[in-house]
């Protein structure tokens, strides 16, 4: 009998939820980006969101972790993958750089000269703490060939603005870091002509990122 009562209650709850979904239909949602899992390997197909039409990426001059000037327009000929982050970041930034390291390995398995054709770039959003030395140490934990870029706050602010990067400092007195920074977690991909071509969203699979970069390398080779 007890079980019958319980079953009756459960049945009514289930009927309620089912009724709501039958009457109301599915909740509407927005279809954002293009991350189709069934994307096939063909030229011109990408897992990342595309910039259509592509356009020259805003140029900048920053400094790398070795103190050398880094001029974006001088990187033409390479595919450039650009991420904005900071070395005290607890989650997204190390995750993204670790992904880049794996993606580079995946590309090297497919293309012999991949390492020479792709450049992974990390632009700091924390000029106060991310000095050249700190960036050098941090980047070397992942791959010393990656570029860790820095400059004074004013120069970086213009770069963030040009690339639509949100940078918001959040005080965290309970953390030894003192403050954290909320920032955009997307990666931009530039083709070998310096055009902004793709946006990769945080959480994309390594294989998907590698696929997109391979497409752009092959495109550059075909030119």
């Amino acid at each position, binding site marked *: 009998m*007890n079980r019958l009562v319980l079953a009756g209650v459960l049945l009514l709850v289930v009927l*309620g939820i089912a009724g*709501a979904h039958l009457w109301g239909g599915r909740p509407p949602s927005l279809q954002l*980006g293009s991350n189709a899992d069934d994307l096939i390997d063909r030229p011109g197909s990408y897992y990342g969101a595309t910039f259509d*039409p592509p*356009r020259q990426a805003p140029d900048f001059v920053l400094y790398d972790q070795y103190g050398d000037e880094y001029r974006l327009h001088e990187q033409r000929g390479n595919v450039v993958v650009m991420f904005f982050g900071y070395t005290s970041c607890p989650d997204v930034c190390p995750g993204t750089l670790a992904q880049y390291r794996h993606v580079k390995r995946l590309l090297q398995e497919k293309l012999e000269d991949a390492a020479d054709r792709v450049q992974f770039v990390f632009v700091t959003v924390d000029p106060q703490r991310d000095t050249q030395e700190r960036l050098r140490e941090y980047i070397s934990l992942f791959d010393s060939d990656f570029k860790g870029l820095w400059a004074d706050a004013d120069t970086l602010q213009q770069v963030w603005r*040009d*690339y*639509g990067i949100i940078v918001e400092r959040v005080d965290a007195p309970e953390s030894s870091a003192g403050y954290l920074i909320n920032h955009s977690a997307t990666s931009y991909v530039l083709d070998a002509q310096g055009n*902004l071509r793709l946006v990769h969203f945080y959480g994309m699979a390594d294989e998907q990122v590698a696929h997109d970069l391979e497409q752009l390398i092959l495109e550059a080779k075909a030119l």
Partner: protein
Amino acid sequence: MSKGLRIAGAIGVALAALIFAFAVGRPIKVLPRMAPAPPFELLDPWGKPVSAPREDAKITLYTFGALRDDEGMARIRAFYDKAHRALSDAGFADAVEFVFITVDPDHDDPEALRRAIASPPTVRSLPPQMMPLTGSWIAIRMVVGTGFGVYFQPPAVEAHQGAGQLAAALPPPKYDPTVIVVDRDHVIRARYALNQFDTGTLVRDVNLLVKEANAQGATRWIYEGAHLFLCYPR
């Protein structure tokens, strides 16, 4: 069966019946939480950064357009006039703010936006109560296209430059005239095609958002239940 168990069973059945009635009868309606609105930092007509989300945000009606698209701007002005009047009549004038984000940032820089709100009402002007925003072309594409999911197609700069045209002389981008309603928590709650917009739906939707935002205590939970059971207006 003991008396206590019978009472508990009866309460359970009553509760379940209530949930069923709530789900089917939908006495409280809510607008769906469609997606988080994109966080952004854009520039106002004075070149100052304006960011979202903000703690003091109101319900915001976002429209998108290009100042030199006369037809589109006329549509936006007409939308504003009708929407503002209807919301004022319903007592919601202070609950809502209007934001215009340009899809033509090469042309609509802060100075152009300033001119648009300062000029007397013409086809290319914006109502002074509407906050116009601009930014870099990447920021605009990320906010409008990727973030809000509004279709827009900028002209191919290089193709036109090949024909000797400057970027400023390019045609304005093609775009989908849309109104997006964002609540105080920076969540997209409704979107309308601008050319099929009707004030009755807008007032109804703003009314639902205001009631939901004002819900406190137990009522708050009832609203959450309404979301769970998809109690959306038809």
